[in-house]
Structures are given as C-alpha cells and as structure tokens.
C-alpha cells in the first residue's frame, strides 16, 4: 500500500466559458474546495478554453498523456470523447457533467446538476407573488437539466395557485442576449409578472420595474438588477467533494473505480443546490409569498415535502 496522496491535480475542460452560469458556478466551487483541502490534499487545477466536439478529445488526450493530472473533469456533454480515452488511461479518473451524456462506468463518473428543488420553492413563492396569475420562463435550449427546473418552478407555483398560467419560450441559442430580451418582453406583455430567466439577461426586468420580479438561474446575480429577488443556486461543492473522495479512496486504498451508470446528483438537502439570498428585497413581493416560501422550505428541510422531478419539455399552459 502506497503512502496516502498529498496532491490532487485536476484538468478541467469547459464548454461555454467562465462567464456562463454553468461553468462559472463550477469554477467558484472548485476554488472553495481547494481552500477546504479535503483529505489534506493540495489541489491544483488547470482550466481550458471552452471546447467542443473533437477538440475536446484532443485536449483531453493531451492532458492524459502529459501524466500531470489525476482527474480529467469534462464539464459538459463529453461522453463521446471520454469513451475514446477511458480504456486507454484506466488509472485516470474522468468526470463528465450534465445532460446529453451516456453512462460509461469504470473510471468515468457522471455528475448531474439539478436545481429543481430550489426552483420549486421559488415557484411556490411566485405562485403567491403573481398578481396577474401568469408566470413565465425563458430558456436557451431545452435539455433534461433545463426542463427539470422550469417544470419544478411551474409545479411549485401551481401547487399554491392551481389556476396559474405558465408561459415558456426557448431562444435556441447560447449567445443572443438581445433575442433573450425580446422573448422575455413578449412574455411580460402576455402578463407574466414573475419571470424565471435562464438566458443570462436581466435588462427587461429593469425595464418593467413596476411590475416584474425576476428569478435568476444557477448563480446569485442579484447585483445585475434591483428586480432580481433570488435564484435557484447550483452548488457543486458536494459533487466535487464526493468525487475527490472516490479518487482518494482509489489512490489510498486501491478501491477500483466504479463510475455511476445512473444519473447522480446532490440534492438541496445534501447541499447541491440552494435558494439564493433575497438580499433584503423581500418587499418586491407580498409578505404572504415570502411566508409561503418559508413554510415550504421548512417542510422540505423537515423532509416532509417531496419535490417531483419532471424532465419533459415544458410548455405554455
């Protein structure tokens, strides 16, 4: 048995860029974990440019061949590329995240991120906060881990307000804030007064100051607009820690890798997600909305509230 490892070197490949919520929240969590030094490990990281497709395989291969990394963390839909490498580098641990991946098992771990639970709670809030009875959401592209939060948000709203009307739109682009603004504005015109925005643009919230309250997504963007009340937060810390544990166990104790073949994510209870602070903006919505939210959250914390997971394509209702 070798000495327990002192150092963990992680190569990270991202798909969108640190400015995106998906990658940004992950990189922040990574820094926190580095500071926390699990198992007393010194963790070093190297983060690539946003890469897609075959380029990912080239970059991963390079990281793998360099022998300078222990974990190759592909932070997107990279199972095709990892499948080409995993058997060539059996001692390396590969991670891939999010939807669109295929389970590979062995030395490949597949981590999901679901924030549907906080989204549901914020939906409860929205169900009470809306005066028009219409809530809406604009997304980039539909996917498993996008649909879940939109559906949960609507389900939460509907749970307290069965007659509520829901509006949803996708802009089919990662990159078009101007188009995102138009789609949000269209929903606002259709009566939406609580907007769950997944498109990384909050300027329409500012424009409709009197009427609209916005919910951000994944990260706490509260500084970007005074109309942002909260957001379902993605916290990757437990995921990273769990996988670091796996790696440590493998290195220190020789436990073979056994990558998950089922989707795996940390729940809100496990710290994988949270509701962002209201930053003192509770007055944006009626007190009863806050109260209902607090009640639901308490029920969840007490294990009394089961939040349903629905990944079907959300539709306007």
């Amino acid at each position, binding site marked *: 048995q070798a000495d327990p490892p002192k150092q963990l070197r992680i190569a990270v490949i991202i798909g969108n860029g640190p400015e995106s919520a998906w990658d940004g929240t992950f990189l922040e969590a990574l820094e926190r974990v580095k500071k926390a030094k699990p198992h007393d490990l010194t963790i070093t990281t190297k983060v690539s440019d946003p890469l897609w497709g075959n380029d990912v395989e080239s970059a991963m291969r390079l990281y793998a061949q360099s022998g300078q990394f222990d974990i190759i963390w592909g932070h997107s839909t990279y199972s095709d590329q990892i499948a080409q490498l995993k058997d060539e580098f059996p001692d390396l641990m590969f991670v891939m995240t999010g939807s669109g991946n295929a389970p590979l098992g062995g030395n490949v771990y597949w981590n999901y991120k679901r924030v549907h639970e906080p989204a549901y709670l914020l939906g409860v809030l929205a169900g009470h906060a809306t005066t028009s009875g219409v809530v809406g959401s604009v997304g980039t592209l539909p996917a498993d881990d996008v649909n879940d939060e939109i559906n949960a948000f609507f389900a939460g709203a509907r749970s307290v307000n069965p007659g509520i009307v829901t509006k949803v739109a996708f802009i089919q682009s990662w*990159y078009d804030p101007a188009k995102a603004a138009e789609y949000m504005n269209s929903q606002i015109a259709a009566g939406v007064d609580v907007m769950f925005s997944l498109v990384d643009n909050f*300027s329409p919230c*500012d424009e409709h100051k009197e009427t609209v309250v916005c919910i951000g997504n994944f990260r706490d963007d509260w500084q*970007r607009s005074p109309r942002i009340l909260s957001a379902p937060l993605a916290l990757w810390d437990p995921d990273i820690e769990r996988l670091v544990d796996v790696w440590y166990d493998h290195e220190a104790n020789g436990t073979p890798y056994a990558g998950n073949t089922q989707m795996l994510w940390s729940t809100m209870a496990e710290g994988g997600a949270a509701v962002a602070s209201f930053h003192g903006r509770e007055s944006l919505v009626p007190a009863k909305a806050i109260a209902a939210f607090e009640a639901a959250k308490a029920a969840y914390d007490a294990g009394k509230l089961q939040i349903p997971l629905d990944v079907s394509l959300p539709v306007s209702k």
Partner: protein
Amino acid sequence: MDALLDNALLISVFVTMLRSATPLLLSSIGELAIQRAGIWNLGVEGTMLSAAFAAYAVVVATGSLPLATVAAVLVGALVGALTSMLTVALKLDQFVTGLAINLVASGLTLYLFRSNHAVFSAGNFTGFAPVAVPFLADIPVIGRIFFQQRLPTYLALALIPLAWFFLHRTRQGLELRVLGENPKVLQTRGIAVAPRLWLIIVAGSGLTGLGGAFLVLGLSDRFIPEITAGRGWLVVVALVAGNWSLFGTITAVFAFAALQAIASHAQVLNLPVPYQFLLALPYIASLATLMIFRSRSGQPAHLGLRDIGK
C-alpha cells in the same frame, strides 16, 4: 390567435418591433450610405461586433453611458477606416475585405474577451433606459409604442427622414449617390473621390457601430462573444431586399423586426407547432416575400467595382 389580438400583446408586438429594429435601423442607414457610394461593404457584422465590444469595455471601465456610446462609434469608425484603407486605397476586392473584417472582429473580440476574463465577467452597468416623451407618451397606444422607447430608437427614427433629406436634397448627398453610380462624373470635375469615400465609409461605419453598441447598451446587460448573432448580415440582406432605396431598406428592416416580434409573442401562445418553426418564421417569410415581390434592381451601378480613383 385571439390572444395575439389582445390589446396589450398587440402593443407589445409593435414596441418590440421598434426596439429590436433599432440596431438594424442605425446600422442599415450607415451601410446604405456606404453602399450607395458604391462600396459593397460586407463587414457590417464585424463592425457592429467590434463596436459592441468597445461599448461594453468602456461602460464597465468607466460606468459612463455617453463615453461608451462615443467609444462604440469611434471603434466603428476605426473599422471603417480599415475598410477604406483596404478597399479605397489598396482597391482590394470589397466582398473579400468585408469577410476578412468580420473574421478579424470575431477573432479579436473573442480573444480579448477570453484573455481578460476578470474584466469581462464583471458586467454591471446602467444602459439606455426607456425615456417617455412628455405628453406624447400619454397618447393611447401610439404613445406606448413610439414614445416610451430608448434614446437610440428615437435617434434611429429621426435619422430616417434626415437620411432621406441628406441623400436627395443636399449637394453632398447627390455626390454620394453619383459616387455609387459613376465616380468618374466627380473625378472629371476635379473632385478627389478617395477622400470622400473615406469620409463616407468612416461615418457610415460609425453609425453602424452605434447600432452594435445598442445591442449591449440597450438590449442586454453584458457582452457575450458573437453578441451580434448575424444581425450585421441581416442589414446586408435588408439593403439587397430593399433594393438599396432608403425606404425599401427601412421597410425590410421593419418587416423583419415585425416578423421576429410576432414570432417571439407567438411563443407565449402555446401553438401546436415546434417552437423552432416560430424561430425560423421570419427567415421563411422573408424569402417568401422576396419571391413574390420582384422589382427592378436599384443596385448602384458602381457597387463593388474596384476602379475607384486616387
């Protein structure tokens, strides 16, 4: 479709149309001047993108909206100067030059964005907010549609008659049109063509830059690589579809913006069609329109030709 006819929604369609037409209008008026002067400038996308980038960099650095706007116009003009150098001074192929400019703009903005992540992810600024015009804004319907817009929208609308007046009622405007038809007419009267082309390209690109800036300062709260998302190309398409006439171009821009506004509003209706179809609708409808309305080409006779005088 009842809901579409709903008053608030209908007004919103028009408001959206005007707002999302704004960057296209500003840029297409700038480009119209350039193309009517005979320069087949395809670098609109790159010009808008560079200006949008500059606007964001400056607004984040200084927090000043006027400064950011000026910076965007200046950067647009700078791209115009590069275009002029390549097409007027060196007489390079204008189509190729435009593509090269787009590529450089796309590559450099992305590169600078990625190299300075700390600066560019710290987006928090106040952009153009809607300004209600006193009294006029209170007119029912019309007031909501026309008089509660952002400053650049008013500017774009005001530029339409101004541009017409300039092109058709001033000496400089006439000379600009003559340049696009036959620059020799001016040359044989002893007028140096090149400096004029420089001026037109630089000024037109500055206006194009303003259009690009609006994408960041008016419609968004941050810069994202490729934020123009093909709008520069839509400007070129509007010019061609509008037959290089000012009103044709403006009509094309509004028609397209209207189709997009309808498409975005239709998504709230839960229509039984895939949402991708609604997204594609403006493009399908544009093609269909071009198939139905064929008109005599108003293309400037000297557009894209390289035998420009010294």
